[in-house]
């Protein structure tokens, strides 16, 4: 099962490598990882997407909690939550295809943020599966480059992962 784990950690040099190191040392999967400081500069917020059965996820959350730099964490997949990822995708947009790509991008609520005679850059946000669908919808030979941020997530409702 795919899980989104949201982590509040000390904004210390090395904190990120402790998390990454834990995953390689114990053989857990990381599908994506995104991290940035929060409104409180001493704290970073990390969103980590991983795949594992119930037992593995239980170990992952316990081992993460054990890291001295980790202040709090929550497995967002346990409740209702919102997941967003941003993608910029550069596609070949020549004569016949320009309209088609624009149309596709509109359907997915993407924005074209760079235009040349032969290419577009489309910006899109959504949950990861939506971005996957868009990538699949574009003919493969037209894709030049794909850049994705990895998912970040937040729970629905007034509850929050804060101190």
């Amino acid at each position: 099962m795919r899980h989104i784990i949201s982590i509040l950690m000390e904004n210390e040099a090395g904190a990120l490598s402790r998390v990454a190191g834990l995953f390689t040392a114990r053989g857990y999967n990381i599908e994506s990882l995104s991290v940035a400081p929060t409104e409180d500069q001493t704290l970073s917020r990390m969103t980590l997407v991983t795949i594992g059965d119930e037992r593995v996820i239980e170990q992952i959350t316990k081992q993460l909690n054990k890291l001295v730099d980790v202040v709090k964490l929550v497995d967002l997949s346990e409740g209702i939550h919102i997941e967003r990822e941003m993608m910029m995708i550069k596609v070949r947009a020549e004569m016949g295809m320009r309209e088609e790509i624009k149309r596709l991008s509109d359907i997915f609520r993407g924005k074209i943020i760079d235009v040349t005679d032969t290419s577009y850059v489309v910006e899109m946000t959504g949950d990861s599966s939506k971005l996957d669908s868009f990538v699949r919808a574009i003919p493969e030979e037209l894709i030049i480059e794909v850049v994705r941020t990895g998912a970040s997530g937040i729970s629905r409702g007034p509850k929050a992962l804060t101190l």
Partner: protein
Amino acid sequence: MELSGAQIVVQSLKDEGVEHVFGYPGGSVLHIYDAIFQQEDVRHVLVRHEQGATHAADGYARATGKPGVVLVTSGPGATNAVTGIATAHLDSIPMVVITGQVPSPLIGSDAFQEVDTIGITRPCVKHNFLVKRVEDLAETMKKAFHIANTGRPGPVVVDIPKDVTDPNIKVPYEYPSKVKMRSYSPVEKGHLGQIKKAVELMMGAKRPVIYSGGGVVIGDASAELTELVQKTGFPITNTLMGLGAYPGTDNQNIGMLGMHGTYEANMAMHETDVLVAIGARFDDRVTGKIAEFCPHAKIIHIDVDPASISKNVRIDIPIVGQVKSVLNDMLRILTEREILADADALDAWWKQIESWRAVKCLEYPKSDEVIKPQFAVDTLHKVTDGGLYLTSDVGQHQMFAAQYYPFDKPRRWVNSGGLGTMGFGLPAAIGVQMAHPDATVACITGEASILMCIQELATCKQYNLPLKIILLNNGYMGMVRQWQEMFYEGRYSHSYVDALPDFVELAESFGHVGMRIDKPGELAAGFEEAFSRKDELVFIDVVVDPSENVYPMIEAGKGHHQMHLSPQQATERELA
């Protein structure tokens, strides 16, 4: 008070109550060594290799419960310390390791003796710190000790660039009396509801077993464990790390369990209906094949580390907390509620256990010609009345010691279980002797293991440490040879220790007493004589049977009921 970084390091050790630092100097710690030179409260013990420093500090910690302290230089000093840090990490031993680092402006430039100590040690420490400003030093030291010695203990590395200890830069010093870390707050007390449930399940058991481990030693809960075992009348088995937490010579103790555990302990594990795991971590050397582990049991697990629970084996009633506090709660509930065990069932269970015990799995062939290693340990136990602090290296001799030298007190048996580090025994004994100058401290070792840290004999000379080194010399890496005999059709690939030194002369050349014993009849007298030399280190080269193997043995990946009891009975012994 205004102090330099170097003085702050030393002063904070004083303020922590540290009496011994095990270390080895070098460029990036010279400021600190200069500060050490100018005071007398913190005693520095000069080892001969940084691995020795870490094992000595580790031995000190195991024998006292106080964190061991290490001081080494950057680069090779730090990398040499890594084996000892990893050894302490796997056995949850509190340790603070101070490593010098190249000056901050040079970090990342491949400077002389620069390694990324934080990166190298990250996977084998509980936590590590790079101190960037002298103003942060005192607080970081405080945090290091706090983290090392609370919750599930472990080693903490404090990496200090040389400019941070500059003697010319002084800052106000105050050692914090407390630390508060929002990201670190280990659990103390166990959940009362869970503890009550556990007591009910335990007391309703028909075939209970208490399985206790290193956590009871680490958590200083030997008295509470002993009370629980005696109050309930349940059988108890210890892991290799838990030996001594409950008296080894008591009848309720059914011996060590696991790969080289007793027949009765492993059979009891296989048949139990309620297993009470206390400060033990279900290591693969203990569980064997997980699918066949305790097939009939509901399992209670007391552990301070939530990540230990349900890691390898599914737990029915987890209790997260300090073992001492949880056991006290259990004992109180037992007394208040006057819950009694099912006496008839327990009686029948003990009869069953006694029938397994009657197999006498630790019996070994007697010989008048060669010294059997088991006989050597047996004799050692008799001669020393079971009163030793005994450190061990790794191999067959370690298992023989665990099987034939029962410990009645905790912190007496000091060995590397998790990492299984050859070379641990001698430096660890140095740490134990430093902690307990008046105690009789011995190290049991093999001829391969002892050579891994033999240089520490010089340290013993310098500090007049009257250790007794008992070398069970079988001329082989016995434990390796045993596996090759059993699983590789006797192809003894590189397990023969060729070109051994003369250990008697070797010991003498370091200024110690050397002895050789090769006849069973001379063993007891030889040991008597060695232990009567109270002020000297005696190195006893005991020439033992080169072909002896450790039994019982459960092959890796087999179940508890599938033991080899002896070479003759090298077949599966299924349940009757």
